[in-house]
């Protein structure tokens, strides 16, 4: 009886648990949590999939991890937001060419009580200096993501090394944007976030946007095809079709038409 059960289990599970790779063509896109958590990819991808029959499988992690995964060949396309690191990825030969796709901006969110008194400012550097001066709790991604890299560049401009205060007012969560926003929400901390993730975040609690509009908060997204010369098994043809679509008129207008609560989250700017 047990043998029969096992056999039945293997048949029912085995056939269906096998990867579906054989039937439908697909690509793996290494991307960042902001493009997924904001709902953008869920909104625009069905259009591409219907047009081409190519299934787009998105692995959403921090930019740093996405780039490392792509270097290992575990993706066909890279869609992230850390221009410097992206260009290095191409220079080192891991990627074919980098294209601008879209942009949005970072915002500084913090508790409504605003202990560092930064509300309404448009100078992010002055605001961060005020947070550090007041030793107000600040939650940092601390995970080498695009947002974390942007934050560290801004601290450089402030000429403050917040990691010296790590564990006191400066808290490195080592987690994704959503997890870090949950931390900030739970302990009334300031944090730097991309606007898309913030806008779609369900647990804003006592936090609100306090500083925005500084040109230094510009957040550019780029797309790169993983180099098939480095990884011959990369699905380069299908990956290129996706990139062509994304930076072409159809993809760009799909990005522009995605709105959450009436607000546009990403602004297409491919050449």
């Amino acid at each position, binding site marked *: 009886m047990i043998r029969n059960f096992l056999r039945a289990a293997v048949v029912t599970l085995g056939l269906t648990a096998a990867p579906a790779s054989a039937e439908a063509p697909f690509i793996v896109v290494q991307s960042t949590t902001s493009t997924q958590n904001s709902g953008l990819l869920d909104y625009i991808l069905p259009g591409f999939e219907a047009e081409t029959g190519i299934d787009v499988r998105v692995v959403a992690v921090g930019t740093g991890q996405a780039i490392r995964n792509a270097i290992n060949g575990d993706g066909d396309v890279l869609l992230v937001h850390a221009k410097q690191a992206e260009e290095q990825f191409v220079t080192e030969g891991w990627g074919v060419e980098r294209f601008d796709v879209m942009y949005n901006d970072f915002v500084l969110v913090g508790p409504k009580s605003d202990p560092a008194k930064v509300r309404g400012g448009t100078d992010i550097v002055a605001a961060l200096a005020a947070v550090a001066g007041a030793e107000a709790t600040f939650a940092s991604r601390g995970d080498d993501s695009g947002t974390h890299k942007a934050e560290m560049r801004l601290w450089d401009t402030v000429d403050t090394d917040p990691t010296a205060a790590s564990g006191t007012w400066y808290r490195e969560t080592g987690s994704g944007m959503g997890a870090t926003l*949950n931390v900030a929400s739970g302990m009334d901390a300031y944090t730097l976030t991309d606007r898309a993730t913030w806008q779609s975040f*369900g647990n804003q609690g006592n936090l609100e946007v306090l500083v925005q509009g500084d040109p230094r908060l510009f957040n550019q997204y780029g797309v790169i095809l993983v180099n098939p010369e480095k990884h011959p098994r990369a699905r380069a043809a299908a990956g290129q079709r996706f990139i062509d679509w994304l930076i072409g008129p159809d993809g760009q207008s799909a990005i522009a038409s995605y709105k959450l609560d009436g607000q546009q989250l990403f602004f297409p700017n491919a050449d």
Partner: protein
Amino acid sequence: MQGFASEFSSAIALILNGDAELWAIVLLSLKVSIFAVLISAVIGMPVGAALAVARFPGRRMLIVLMNALMGFPPVVVGLLVYLMLSRSGPLGVLELLYTPTAMIIAQVVLVTPIVAALTRQVIEMLAEEYSEQLRSLGVSRLASVPVLLWDARLALVTALLAGFGRAIAEVGAVIIVGGNINHVTRVMTTTIALETSKGNLALALALGAILIGIAVAVNAMVSTLSLRAEREGLRHA
């Protein structure tokens, strides 16, 4: 928190109103974990039983190692399996990364030590109890393994359930090797992690409640089955 309670109950209602996508996720969770437990049983039970009856130098150390592996951190297992299955890893040619098969492999690594260690314990006690009889029948130690396993089958169900509990509740390994890809490798735990990161805490908690419900249902089903088997066994005896 009042808002949270109503949010939570509306999330539960939403889920129970037959959300097809959610049930596909539940089904994939069950498939991956049940499959992983079955494979772990095939590997872990003979290994555990053999360790229980065999006598060789280094046996104690192996047992200690096996017991320690029950606490192997899932993230580390996920990382190891990722490095093996990555395109630049030794098994990259198999193209298994980001598939349900990769998740099964990771869970097998996590569950097999549990099944083996618990089997070892059960069989060791049983072997002591039966040692006289087995010796008088002239059965060698290793040859007694299948008999002992069969005799201990009801106790071993608990070992499998412990393994299933570890597999179905685990997130650290499957999110690395599965990638939490929508419609492909998204399971209950990775969905909960995703909704938490979106700040949809009520929905995440509601999904957690469903997951617990499934675990209870599976355990109840198995315990009913083994109780029935036990009664039948007594009747035949």
